[in-house]
C-alpha cells in the first residue's frame, strides 16, 4: 500500500541525495576557487604570461652635415625545423633551392635538414635521443633577397622554414673613412666593436634591453586587454663627426690616384680646420670595405694615422725656425753660411741636397737647407728648442677621439746627445704621427694657438632628440711675439713659389704656405737610402686659412721627393676643396 507518507519520504530522500551532491559541488567549488586560488592562479599565470625581450637599435654615425656613414640595415636569419620540412626527398629539394639562392654548399644544408634527431646529455650523465627542431640555413640574409625567398617558399609549398628579423651594421659608403669608422663583429646576436670610432664610442652606441611581460591567448599572441608591464628599450646615441663627406670623397680619390701613380706601401692624408681643430677629412691607404670582410687583411684595417709614427723630415723646419723668430734669435733677413752643402758638426757630416752658400732665414726655408736650419737651432739653444717643440705638441697626444694614439718618439732634454740639436729641427731623430704634424701646422696657420684635434662634433639622443656638443677646449699659445706669425707664413709662402721646393703644390690664384719633407726610413737601425717618406703639408689661403692639409706617401716608387710625390696631390685636393668651400681666389693669375 503506497501511502502519502511513503511518497513524502521518497521525495525527501531524493532531495537529500541531491542536496548532498550539490553540497559536494559547492564544497569543491569553494575549495578550488577560494582555498586553492593562489596556487591555481599562479599556475594559470605561468601558462598564459609570456616575457618578450626587446633591444633598441645601435647608434648611428653621421658626418657633420647629417649624411649617414654607419647605420643599421634590416636583414633576416633563416632557420628550419627538420621535423616539419619533410622526408629526405623534400630535404634535398629545399637544400638545393637554398644552395642556389644563397650560394651555399647543398650537401651541408641537406645534412642539417635531414638530421631528425640529436643526442643530448641527461642529468644522470647519460645520453638520450631527442627530436631535432632546429637547423640553421643562413644568417644575415639581405632584406630584398629574403623577400624573394619568402615568396618562392610560399609558391613551392616548403614547410618548416622560419624567417627571423635581425639587423646588421651597414656602411653605405663602403670604403669611405673605413679606417676611422672601424667595424663590428656579431657574437650571439650582439654587436662587438673591434676598432675605430665603433669601439671608442661603443658604450654610447649600445642600446638598452627591456623586457615586456604580457598575457597571451591560446594562439600565443598578446591580449590587448590583458595585464602588461612594459619597459621601453632605448636606442643607442648617434654620433656626428666633424668629417665632411664631400671633402672626404675628394681626399680619398686623390689618394687613390697617388697610390696608382707612385705605388707606395701606404699613404695618408689629413685635412683640418686650423681655428677649431676639426678634422674635415682623414684617409689612409691601404683600406678595406667593412661590408665585405672576405678580402680584408689586418694590415688594411689597422689605423696607421694614429698608431704609426714617421720622421717628419724637413716639414719640421718651419716649427724650429718659428721658435727662433719668436725668441728673437733671428729675423727673416738674418744670413747664414750654408757651407756649400757640406758641414761637419760634432764630428758628423751634415749635407744639403744642393750646395748653397749664404742664405737668409727665408731662403733657408724656401730651399730647405739642413745646414742653415742646424745653425739657427744652435743659436736658439737646446733648452729653448726643446720648449718650442713641446709647445707645438710633440711628444703629446693630439686630443683626437681615437685610440690607441701614439705620442711619437721625442726624447726628453736630458737624453739628447750632441747631434740632437742639429737633427731634430730637420725632422731626424724625432718621430711624430701624422696627426701631431697637422696639429703643429694648425698652430702655425691660426696665429699661434695649439688647438686640440676634434673628430666628434656632437652626440644625439634619438629618443629625446637632445644634443650634446663636444666643447672646444682652450688652446695654449705657442707664439708670444705678435710678429712671429706673419714672419713665418711669409717664409712658408716662398716654398710654393719660384725657387722653392714645392712648385707643384702651388695653386693658381691662391697663396699656399707649406713645406715639403723627404725623410729616410730607419731600416735595421740605420737610415735607408732606398726607402723614404715623401710629404707635403701646408695651408691655404695664407691670410685666412680654410684648412691645413698633409699628404704623405710611405716608400713611393720611381721618385721619393715630397715636392714631386705629395705636392701635386696636395694641389689637387686643395683646389677642389677650395671650390667646394667657395673660397674665392686671393688674386687673379695675371695680377700676381
Amino acid at each position: 500500500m503506497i501511502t502519502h507518507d511513503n511518497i513524502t519520504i521518497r521525495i525527501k530522500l531524493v532531495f537529500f541525495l541531491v542536496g548532498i551532491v550539490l553540497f559536494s559541488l559547492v564544497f569543491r567549488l569553494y575549495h578550488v576557487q577560494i582555498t586553492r586560488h593562489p596556487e591555481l592562479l599562479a599556475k594559470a599565470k605561468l601558462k598564459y604570461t609570456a616575457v618578450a625581450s626587446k633591444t633598441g637599435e645601435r647608434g648611428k654615425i653621421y658626418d657633420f652635415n647629417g649624411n649617414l656613414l654607419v647605420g643599421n640595415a634590416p636583414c633576416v636569419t633563416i632557420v628550419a625545423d627538420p621535423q616539419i620540412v619533410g622526408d629526405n626527398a623534400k630535404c634535398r629539394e629545399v637544400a638545393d633551392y637554398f644552395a642556389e639562392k644563397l650560394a651555399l654548399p647543398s650537401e651541408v644544408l641537406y645534412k642539417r635538414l635531414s638530421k631528425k634527431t640529436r643526442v643530448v646529455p641527461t642529468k644522470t650523465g647519460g645520453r638520450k635521443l631527442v627530436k631535432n627542431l632546429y637547423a640553421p640555413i643562413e644568417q644575415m640574409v639581405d632584406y630584398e633577397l629574403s623577400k624573394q625567398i619568402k615568396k618562392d617558399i610560399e609558391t613551392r609549398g616548403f614547410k618548416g622554414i622560419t624567417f627571423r628579423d635581425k639587423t646588421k651594421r651597414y656602411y653605405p659608403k663602403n670604403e669611405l673613412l673605413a679606417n676611422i669608422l672601424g667595424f663590428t663583429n656579431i657574437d650571439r646576436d650582439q654587436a662587438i666593436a673591434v676598432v675605430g670610432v665603433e669601439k671608442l664610442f661603443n658604450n654610447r652606441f649600445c642600446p638598452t634591453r627591456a623586457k615586456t611581460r604580457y598575457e597571451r591567448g591560446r594562439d600565443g599572441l598578446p591580449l590587448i586587454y590583458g595585464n602588461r608591464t612594459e619597459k621601453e628599450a632605448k636606442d643607442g646615441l648617434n654620433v656626428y663627426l666633424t668629417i665632411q663627406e664631400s671633402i672626404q670623397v675628394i681626399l680619398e680619390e686623390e689618394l687613390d690616384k697617388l697610390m696608382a701613380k707612385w705605388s707606395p706601401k701606404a699613404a695618408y692624408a689629413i685635412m683640418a680646420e686650423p681655428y677649431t681643430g676639426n678634422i674635415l677629412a682623414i684617409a689612409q691607404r691601404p683600406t678595406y670595405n667593412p661590408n665585405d670582410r672576405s678580402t680584408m687583411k689586418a694590415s688594411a684595417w689597422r689605423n696607421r694615422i694614429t698608431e704609426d709614427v714617421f720622421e717628419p723630415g724637413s716639414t719640421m723646419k718651419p716649427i724650429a725656425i718659428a721658435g727662433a723668430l719668436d725668441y728673437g734669435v733671428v729675423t727673416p733677413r738674418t744670413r747664414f753660411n750654408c757651407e756649400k752643402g757640406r758641414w761637419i758638426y760634432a764630428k758628423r757630416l751634415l749635407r744639403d741636397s744642393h750646395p748653397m752658400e749664404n742664405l737668409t732665414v727665408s731662403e733657408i726655408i724656401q730651399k730647405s737647407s739642413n745646414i742653415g736650419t742646424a745653425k739657427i737651432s744652435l743659436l736658439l739653444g737646446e733648452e729653448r728648442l726643446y720648449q718650442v717643440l713641446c709647445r707645438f705638441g710633440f711628444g703629446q697626444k693630439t686630443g683626437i677621439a681615437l685610440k690607441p694614439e701614439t705620442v711619437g718618439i721625442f726624447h726628453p732634454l736630458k737624453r739628447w746627445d750632441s747631434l740632437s740639436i742639429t737633427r731634430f729641427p730637420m725632422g731626424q731623430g724625432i718621430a711624430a704621427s701624422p696627426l701631431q704634424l697637422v696639429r703643429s701646422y694648425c698652430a702655425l696657420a691660426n696665429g699661434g694657438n695649439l688647438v686640440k684635434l676634434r673628430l666628434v662634433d656632437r652626440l644625439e639622443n634619438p629618443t629625446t632628440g637632445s644634443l650634446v656638443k663636444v666643447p672646444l677646449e682652450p688652446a695654449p699659445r705657442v707664439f708670444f711675439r705678435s710678429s712671429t706669425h706673419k714672419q713665418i707664413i711669409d717664409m712658408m709662402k716662398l716654398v710654393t713659389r719660384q725657387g722653392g721646393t714645392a712648385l707643384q703644390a702651388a695653386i693658381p690664384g691662391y697663396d699656399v704656405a707649406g713645406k715639403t719633407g723627404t725623410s729616410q726610413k730607419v731600416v735595421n737601425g740605420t737610415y735607408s737610402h732606398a726607402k723614404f717618406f715623401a710629404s707635403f703639408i701646408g695651408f691655404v689661403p695664407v691670410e685666412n686659412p680654410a684648412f691645413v692639409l698633409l699628404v704623405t706617401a710611405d716608400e713611393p716608387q720611381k721618385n721619393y721627393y715630397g715636392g714631386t710625390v705629395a705636392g701635386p696631390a696636395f694641389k689637387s685636393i686643395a683646389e677642389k676643396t677650395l671650390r667646394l668651400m667657395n673660397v674665392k681666389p686671393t688674386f687673379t693669375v695675371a695680377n700676381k
Partner: protein
Amino acid sequence: MNFHLTDNSKQKRSRKSKQNTSHFSFVGFFKIIVIAVLIFLVLNARITLMSKTTILSKNINQIQSRIQTFNRDIAHLRVEKETLCGWKHIKQKIRQFNLALQVPDPYQVRHLGVRVNLPRRAPRNEQGMLVSQR
C-alpha cells in the same frame, strides 16, 4: 479488494495547500526563469564583447606586425638611399651615361643668397644635457 480510507477534511486541507503550493511554485519558478534569463543575457553579452575584443586584439596584432614590416622597409630604403647618394654610385652613373659634367671655375659660380651650412637634420633641442640622461 483495496480499501482506501480517506479523510475528507484532510483531503480538503491538502487540496487547498496544494492549490496554494502550485500558485507559489508557479511564481517562484517564473522568478527563477527570469533570473536565469537575465544571467543568460548578461553572460551572452559578455561573451559577445569578449569575442569582439579578441577579434580586435588579433587585428591589432596584425596591424602591429604590418607596422613593424613597414618600419623595416623604411630602414632598408633609408640605407639604400644613402648608398645611392654615395660618390661611388654617382660616379658610376656619370660614366655609364657619359655625362659631360665639369667642376666649375670659381668665377663661374654666383651665389644668390646667404650660404648657410645647416646640418641635414636640424637639431631639435641643443643644450648641454648630460649624455647619461637616458
